[in-house]
């Protein structure tokens, strides 16, 4: 009896960490774009869906080797991010916050429409990255994909930390975010960094989607809910904070899986809204205060 309780708890926790890691990746993508441009990109979830769909097509349709399909999809969606900036955001002469939000919302609908044209309404899935059947731990059993998901989040977090804390390029990107004009005066090409941020935003979304594809079904409009949960995670952790995105994503994932497991599954999808509203009312700066404030 004791041990089934334990294994059940372990199962819930790992399930939470797994979906939480995906939310964290979406939230990191949000912050990547927000930090440099102050654009709250409501199409972030669509980047995730596009990453998954592209990867599935390249792998199952075009029969490319898995690693090639993964890398190519990341690059392709990164480029979609750049195009998004180039054709939707940059042409704006006088961008206001409201206009930008509407624009990214329009962009999200557009990307969904394109996905509907290409992939139709059918759900797709992908094989797990490794052939192992499942892993047992403390009486609970997991898909090996879970290790890929959590491992990728760890690696991505480390790479981002290294980039922003240890390289001048990363610091220049932070400088752009804080004061674009002063950064230009130092010779930083702000437009290039805006482009890089949209590329990375797209790429991070794609990575989330590709990791998720083997453990769930991907449909053309799957991005909307994921985008919302990623956004809730970013706000929960403190919008703009990278550690906050990771913490926010994991906390939301855990809350969802524990409430689904112990209370009822009806909470699963409304929880993100509740968390979003609560944090905006109680502590709008999020759980993790940014080091620069």
């Amino acid at each position, binding site marked *: 009896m004791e041990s089934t309780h334990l294994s059940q708890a372990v199962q819930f926790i790992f399930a939470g960490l797994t979906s939480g890691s995906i939310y964290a990746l979406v939230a990191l993508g949000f912050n990547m774009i927000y930090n440099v441009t102050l654009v709250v990109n409501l199409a972030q979830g669509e980047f995730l869906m596009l990453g998954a769909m592209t990867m599935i097509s390249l792998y199952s349709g075009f029969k490319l080797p898995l690693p090639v399909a993964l890398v190519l999809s990341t690059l392709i969606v990164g480029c979609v991010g750049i195009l998004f900036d180039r054709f939707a955001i940059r042409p704006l002469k006088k961008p206001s916050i409201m206009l930008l939000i509407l624009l990214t919302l329009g962009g999200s609908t557009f990307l969904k429409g394109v996905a509907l044209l290409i992939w139709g309404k059918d759900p797709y899935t992908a094989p797990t990255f490794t052939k192992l059947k499942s892993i047992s731990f403390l009486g609970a059993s997991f898909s090996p994909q879970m290790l890929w998901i959590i491992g990728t989040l760890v690696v991505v977090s480390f790479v981002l930390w290294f980039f922003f804390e240890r390289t*001048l390029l990363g610091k220049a990107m932070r400088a752009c975010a804080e004061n674009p004009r002063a950064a230009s*005066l130092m010779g930083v090409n702000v437009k290039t960094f805006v482009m890089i941020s949209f590329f990375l935003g797209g790429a991070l979304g794609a990575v989330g989607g590709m990791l998720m594809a083997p453990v769930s079904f991907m449909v053309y409009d799957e991005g909307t809910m994921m985008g919302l949960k990623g956004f809730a995670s970013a706000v929960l952790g403190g919008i703009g904070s990278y550690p906050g995105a990771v913490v926010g994503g994991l906390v939301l994932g855990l809350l969802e899986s524990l409430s689904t497991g112990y209370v009822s599954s009806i909470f699963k999808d409304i929880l993100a809204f509740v968390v979003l509203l609560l944090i905006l009312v109680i502590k709008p700066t999020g759980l993790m205060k940014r080091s620069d404030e």
Partner: protein
Amino acid sequence: MMLSVESLSIYYGGIQALKGVSLEVKEREIVSVLGANGAGKSTLLMSISGILPSRQGKIMFDNNEITRQSPSSIVRLGICQVPEGREVFKSLTTLDNLRMGTYHHYRKSPKSLVEKDLERVYTLFPILKQRRTQMAGTLSGGEQQMLAIGRGLMARPKLMMLDEPSLGLAPLVVEEIFRTLTALNSMGITLLLIEQNARAALKIATRGYVMETGKIIMEGRAEDLLENEHVVSAYLGG
């Protein structure tokens, strides 16, 4: 001629902020631009730096036309601006702010040379060495101004343009800043200095310009301007 600005006009929407401004800076000079609030001094520097595109006029630097060049290529040519209000990167440390100054050349510069530049800044402003791991946003106003100048210096400019470096600082700190400017000049850096502290600026300057509502209304040697009736009554509180 190191820098020459020829009949430069700048508009903000429909409003004309610069109305055909011409100005010259020779190598090794300290040139001071005086003018009341809203005269267009910052606008002038921002357009030389390439931040504000100019619709009319011509800017030459070291025999290159820079009128329509990007801010980054202008920095690479050797013009660095220390902007009004310091504009240090508050969320970066003092040392990282200084490193940001090296942004346009750090890939090509040997590390030892950058270290030497850093030592030069620390010699000018020893306090920055003490504060090097501190977030720039937590520095005092005077320290931020020193940091802004230090950051500019790390860019290895031939021409440094300073926009009101003494603004809002205590008299002792102002003195230190002006002493540093003289030191920079004797290191071989040419200075274009915007100041409301007209007396102090003209004392260290070689030549000066007076700007009013987007126009240069007077120019001359600094010692002459210090005695000019209009300058004395309008800017020297006499």
